[in-house]
């Protein structure tokens, strides 16, 4: 019967369902709806080899080597045996291939696991077999696996990892179907909806059922990846499956990010390539000249080939031969090695216990494995506030009731006391239903409650009634609240503890245990929260029969709705609110109104009309709400503490010391943001000034004269084309902070003033942008990226940070609090903001240093290796004769020298992690790009050239006209080759030793085993047996035995190494003496008076700071757009 339903349904549904879509999509959808099977894997057994090879050869480097291989097949050109290119290429290809294969196997397994989850499709079925149009049954606590539109029941749900529950509701027409399978299977309807997209908070569609159209929106849809709560079951119609689901659409798209070292490397490889062509041209010209002067006459012994009839042709061929020989300046293994190093350094992040958050069981995760070294170069950190700096845990901290402020405690002399761990908590034992985790310190409030103060009672009653929290009571007396926003939860919990326990609700009633007495209030209406209204109200009928309206909302809004008689109370309360706000607390005003029966009845009718109207429903409802929310009596105000995460102030202080500019971008209002700024060390009292908003004036104060045309930067600005230009670093005459709000930012981000903003902001120590939209967050990041050309990092936890995370060079997601969208978009994720400091100062710094050392060494060793061929060209008639044995060329990069450098780039540490954290200054070289830049590159190239000269000419000198001590040959080609290559190998190994700062057992092992391997392979490759088997491939038979026993050979090797290594040691020593780097200072002079930071942990908000920023004005629209769910959204006075 299921099939019947399906046929009917889909015939109708398929065609019409998406008929508002683009034509193309419709055409596709007509025949191929996605089934729910998810395929993230790329290959199968048969397609792997061809597809993978095809992909690999699309990379420029691999294609280049393939081209070289073809060149080698031309006999006139081939200057190297085929295996010198094939062996490395094959190794590189197979390594990448194996990695791809493992990745793909992992994906295959993942797919299999996901696809085989059981699910109830009216008949038991496997997950992957679900199709669009199926009706599935979901049970409590089960996770949703497809995007379903669901026709039955009311459900609240949360994304996994998301603490806030959202309420979802079925359409009334479909919820009537209930649990009736028969009705469900015969259900006939059409759904038209939008094509699959990645917007998690938006959905529009229409259900046509029995000829009537019903609008579908976000509150009617369940998304894949969320968990069902608070309902035993629900049925749903599958509308997106598999890759069409919003979650998959969201996770699939990743912008390909590259590090600045990557860019630099590309430039350098291009340079090297030009250099290569240059060298080859010189040699080719040399060859032409040699041919006319010598080669021509030498023809008696070596007649030239028929096709090569002139020096020009010969030179042309030699050019390509040299391209083959000298190609090792751009070694094929470079890219593979870089990938391996990055991968390993990413694993270190995953493995780091100090970035593991025990309470959540969340390890840090490097989701992108190609950006590690960029972590060591960050100059700007853009942080979200809520959930990132703060825990998003709200604690009812203070309140003001009827002009009386509660929450502070005073000692005997009437002095305010600070609340510490030892402060005695209020005893709530009189209330059996109290939440034991709740703590409050001010006894007077409890006394007031116990005394039966009416206003206090009314205050708490309103808190326990006016909300959208759901309660769960699995065990008698153990209430669990599930709130959409944590502040709501905090308020209801506070009311519960003071004796007004919200126990349960139905759609018509609310049960409250009032000081031990259970009362049932009839819920007449909920006046929804919206971003415009910034308040919510409930209308209830008390058991006594009174009609009451309770309202809570933003203070400024409530003030306007109060009865004039409240003005004196309002003034007092306002004072309290100022105090609360300056403590960094979030405030809400609470008011009530007693309603007349008649007034309510007439209003109720209007309300019904408005709520059933099809057009402009929202607006009409808003008007109706306003009608009744007036003449209210003020009860008081609440103050909720938004707790900082552990270690946030220390982390920020450390980052600022590391010369990282910290910008906080928040949707919060200005004063809250400023307060958080103070409490997490971003703003401090000893700052010269904290500016708010006005950009132009500000800069004048910080750097007098910078507005005048004579200022060099201004001058530069006016003269340079805007787009292509980098704002130089400017230094302010003191330490400043900047606070700017969303409105001003909107203006400031306009084309003509954005530079003003940037110049001003970049001179400030810290910048706080408040009330910004997600888009603005990304714009700010883009602005800095565009004009500063520095590495930026964005850290956030919520959906509103996704833009910013994607825009920045590195996006970091805080996993855990607000869901997984930010994490999915991020490159790195971990559970706590404080881990950022470890990520940057330890992992980032090490990765950067390792990568730089690796690149410097790698370029050096290949230049030293390759350029010897160049010098040899001058003595071998520019004939493209290699200096080394071909086997040595094949193995040099892959076997002989790869392991030590790999060990160094996996283990090297200049200082250990504790010191990296203790001295954030050590981070600066990375920011200034000091360890690997064009200058450093040129240095190592020059050193490589010097080494190759030494290698060649020392060997030349020592073998020229020389013989063995038994008179036999030593200046033959093979001995010469062996001496040069042995010297080279010893030299680069010694050089490696000089570079290594951190000698672990592995380093020792790799270095010594590389040398051993070289010598043993040498004897193996030059052995009798191999030579007798393949006399053409192993030509060097006996060379090692005859040469390596001679003293003058070892003396030559020693001299070469000494001549190359000693200058380096001298240079390093003198540099250390004259200009010690920070690391060396720290390592060598531990006695110097470094200031030590006391690492005492302060509780958030324990700072005293300057008071007040004028009136507490909350203006503008709340920018975090969250579509309202069900009957009320979270009170997003936070972001």
């Amino acid at each position, binding site marked *: 019967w299921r099939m019947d339903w399906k046929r009917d349904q889909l015939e109708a549904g398929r065609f019409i369902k998406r008929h508002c879509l683009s034509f193309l999509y419709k055409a596709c959808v007509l025949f191929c709806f996605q089934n729910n099977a998810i395929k993230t894997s790329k290959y199968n057994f048969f397609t792997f080899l061809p597809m993978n090879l095809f992909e690999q050869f699309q990379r420029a480097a691999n294609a280049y080597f393939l081209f070289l291989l073809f060149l080698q097949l031309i006999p006139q050109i081939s200057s190297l045996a085929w295996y010198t290119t094939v062996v490395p290429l094959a190794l590189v290809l197979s390594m990448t291939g194996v990695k791809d294969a493992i990745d793909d196997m992992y994906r295959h397994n993942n797919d299999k696991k996901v696809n085989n989850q059981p699910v109830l499709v009216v008949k038991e079925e496997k997950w992957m077999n679900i199709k669009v149009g199926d009706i599935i049954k979901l049970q409590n606590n089960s996770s949703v696996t497809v995007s379903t539109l669901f026709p039955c029941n009311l459900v609240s749900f949360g994304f996994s990892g998301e603490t806030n529950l959202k309420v979802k509701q079925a359409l009334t027409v479909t919820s009537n179907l209930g649990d009736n399978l028969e009705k469900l299977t015969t259900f006939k309807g059409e759904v038209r909806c939008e094509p699959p997209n990645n917007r998690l908070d938006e959905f529009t569609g229409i259900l046509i059922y029995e000829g009537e159209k019903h609008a579908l929106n976000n509150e009617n849809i369940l998304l894949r990846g969320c968990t069902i709560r608070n309902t035993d079951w629900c049925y749903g119609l599958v509308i997106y499956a598999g890759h069409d689901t919003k979650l998959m659409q969201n996770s699939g798209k990743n912008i390909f990010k590259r590090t600045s070292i990557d860019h630099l490397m590309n430039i350098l490889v291009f340079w090297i390539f030009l250099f290569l062509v240059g060298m080859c041209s010189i040699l080719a010209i040399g060859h032409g000249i040699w041919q006319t002067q*010598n*080669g021509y*006459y030498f023809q*008696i*012994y*070596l*007649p030239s*080939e028929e096709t090569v009839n002139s020096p020009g042709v010969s030179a042309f061929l030699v050019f390509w*031969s040299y391209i083959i020989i000298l190609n090792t300046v751009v070694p094929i293994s470079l890219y593979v090695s870089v990938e391996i190093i990055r991968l390993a350094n990413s694993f*270190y992040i995953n493995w*780091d*216990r*100090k970035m*593991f958050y025990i309470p959540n069981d*969340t390890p840090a995760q490097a989701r992108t494995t190609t950006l590690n070294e960029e972590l060591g170069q960050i100059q700007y950190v853009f942080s979200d506030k809520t959930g990132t700096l703060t825990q998003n845990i709200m604690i009812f901290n203070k309140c003001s009731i009827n002009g009386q402020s509660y929450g502070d405690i005073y000692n005997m002399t009437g002095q305010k006391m600070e609340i510490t761990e030892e402060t005695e908590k209020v005893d709530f034992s009189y209330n059996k239903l109290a939440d034991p985790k709740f703590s409050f310190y001010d006894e007077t409030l409890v006394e007031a409650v116990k005394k039966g103060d009416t206003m206090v009672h009314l205050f708490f009653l309103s808190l326990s009634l006016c909300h959208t929290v759901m309660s769960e009571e699995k065990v008698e007396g153990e209430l669990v609240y599930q709130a959409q926003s944590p502040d709501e939860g905090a308020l209801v919990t506070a009311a519960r503890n003071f004796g007004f326990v919200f126990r349960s609700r139905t759609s018509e009633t609310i049960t409250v245990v009032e000081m031990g007495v259970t009362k049932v209030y009839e819920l007449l209406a909920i006046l929804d929260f919206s971003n415009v209204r910034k308040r919510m109200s409930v209308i209830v009928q008390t058991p006594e029969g009174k009609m009451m309206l309770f309202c809570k909302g933003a203070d400024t809004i409530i003030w306007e709705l109060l009865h004039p008689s409240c003005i004196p109370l309002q003034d007092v309360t306002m004072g309290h609110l100022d105090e609360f706000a300056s403590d960094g607390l979030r405030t809400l005003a609470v008011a009530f109104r007693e309603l007349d029966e008649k007034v309510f009845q007439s209003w109720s009718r209007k309300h019904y009309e408005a709520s059933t109207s099809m057009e402009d429903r929202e607006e009409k409802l808003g008007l109706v709400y306003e009608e009744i929310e007036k003449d209210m009596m003020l009860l008081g105000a609440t103050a909720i503490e938004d707790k900082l995460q552990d270690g946030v102030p220390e982390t920020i202080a450390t980052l600022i010391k590391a010369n990282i500019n910290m910008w906080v971008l928040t949707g919060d209002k200005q004063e809250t943001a400023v307060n958080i700024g103070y409490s997490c060390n971003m703003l401090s009292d000893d700052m010269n000034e904290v500016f708010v908003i006005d950009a132009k004036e500000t800069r004048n104060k910080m750097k007098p004269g910078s507005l005048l045309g004579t200022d060099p930067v201004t001058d530069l600005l006016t003269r340079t084309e805007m787009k292509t230009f980098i704002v130089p670093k400017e230094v302010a005459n003191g330490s400043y902070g900047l606070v700017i709000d969303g409105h001003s930012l909107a203006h400031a981000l306009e084309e003509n003033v954005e530079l003003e903003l940037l110049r001003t902001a970049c001179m400030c120590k810290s910048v706080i942008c408040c009330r910004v939209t997600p888009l603005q967050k990304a714009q700010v990041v883009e602005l800095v990226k565009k004009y500063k050309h520095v590495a930026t990092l964005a850290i956030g936890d919520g959906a509103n940070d996704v833009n910013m995370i994607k825009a920045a060079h590195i996006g970091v997601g805080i996993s855990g609090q607000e869901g997984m969208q930010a994490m999915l978009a991020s490159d790195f994720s971990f559970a706590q903001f404080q881990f950022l400091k470890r990520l940057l100062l330890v992992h980032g710094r090490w990765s950067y240093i390792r990568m730089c050392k690796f690149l410097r060494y790698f370029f050096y060793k290949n230049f030293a290796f390759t350029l010897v061929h160049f010098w040899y060209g001058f*003595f*071998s*008639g520019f004939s493209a004769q290699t200096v080394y044995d071909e086997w040595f060329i094949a193995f040099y990069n892959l076997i002989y020298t790869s392991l030590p450098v790999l060990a160094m780039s996996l*283990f090297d540490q200049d200082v250990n992690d504790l010191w990296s954290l*203790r001295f954030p200054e050590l981070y600066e070289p990375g920011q200034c790009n000091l360890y690997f830049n064009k200058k450093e590159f040129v240095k190592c190239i020059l050193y490589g050239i010097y080494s190759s000269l030494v290698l060649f000419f*020392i060997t030349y*000198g*020592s073998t020229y*006209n020389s*013989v*063995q*001590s038994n*008179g036999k*040959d030593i200046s*033959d*080609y*093979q001995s*010469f080759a062996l001496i040069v290559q042995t010297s080279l190998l010893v030299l680069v190994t010694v050089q490696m030793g000089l570079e290594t*700062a951190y000698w*672990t057992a592995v380093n020792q092992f790799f270095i010594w085993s590389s040398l051993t391997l070289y010598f043993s392979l040498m004897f193996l490759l030059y052995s009798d047996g191999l*030579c*007798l088997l393949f*006399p*053409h491939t192993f*030509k060097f038979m*006996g060379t090692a*035995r*005859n040469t390596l026993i001679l003293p*003058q050979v070892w*003396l030559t090797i020693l*001299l070469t190494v*000494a001549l190359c290594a*000693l200058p380096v*040691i001298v240079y390093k*020593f*003198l540099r250390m003496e*004259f200009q010690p780097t920070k690391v060396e*200072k*720290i*390592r*060598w002079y*531990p006695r*110097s*008076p470094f200031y030590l930071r006391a*690492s005492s942990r302060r509780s958030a908000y324990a700072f005293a700071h300057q008071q007040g920023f004028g009136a507490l004005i909350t203006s503008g629209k709340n920018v975090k757009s969250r579509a309202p769910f069900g009957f009320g959204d979270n009170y997003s006075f936070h972001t």
Partner: protein
Amino acid sequence: MACLFRGVVLGGLVPFAAGPLSPQNSKFLPKPMSHQESQEMKSNNCQGLPSRMPDNTAFQQQQLPAWRPSLTARAVLPGFFTTGVFFLSMGILLILSAKSVKEIEITYTDICSNCSKLRENASNFYKECTCSISFFIPEKMPGNVYMYYKLYNFYQNYRRYIISRNNRQLLGEDITNVENCAPFQRVSNDIPIAPCGAIANSMFNDTILLSYYPNSSTRINVPLLSSDITWWTDKHVKFQNPKSSNLASAFAGTVKPPYWRKPVYQLDQGNPENNGFLNSDFIVWMRVAALPTFKKLYRRIHRIQQFADGLPAGNYSLDISYNFPVTLFKGEKGVVLSTVMWSGGKNFFLGIAYTTTGAVTWLAAFSMTAVHLKLKKKKAFFQC
């Protein structure tokens, strides 16, 4: 087991430092105990570990014990002084050794100019040309004396030249195998050349005889040995004659290289063992030189009679059968008589290079010491 390990390594946070100056051992900075660490301590009992907690191995936590060497003055300066001393003494030793080598070189391209001219014309190929050169050895050449021929401007290291040989043929396995031997693979009527290739074809084929004149009337031929002038491995492994009772028949079906006067099995008529691919002169020639100017061992002086202690001082003459054309490619050739020392022939390069390096190292060591001592005072007032 895993738990045990965790415990051990945690306690083992200390071992990742070594050396007295490494910061971790410094007493001045107390090791901070981070919040995380204390968390770890608390939850380090076996049951309470969260499931996704990474393993606490020294490798994964990047705390492998390590040695952290550093270029301190205390290590560098003595090192430089020692290196300097070593290089200087080694250099002097090498110079003295090279100095004690006696060497005489006679370039005969110009002296035998009429022969040189004659050889410029290929049509005179079969004409004999001999040339005699007398010379004087002022000092006795003690010990083993070796006779070399030396060629100038001969590019044995030219790529096409180097590869123009067939090692399989030279192994005697398949003498008709002339692969890689271009442009001397076969003669016109398609018969393979043995030994094939440009190297073999261009083999040096002058004969050099040395005579000693103890007085103006007496002439003694200096006995010369052609044995043991090759690498042992070449003579015994790399070059082998085809297996056959008679060498001449073994090479049947091949022809001699075009520039040769005699086939390969008749190279040394005095010594039947020294023929075919095993001819020592041939083997020496086939080991190509690295540079365009090179000398190759031709003969050893047989130390008998007057020559038991080497070559006595006095008058000598060389009788050269001039066959090898060099003037065509602007080359030159010569004969070198030389004794050897442990360090090889008369080559001062290594000695001078060592002495110079040693001296410069000392100079560097002194100046670094001066710099270090001067800056040391400053460092006392060092402020970060």
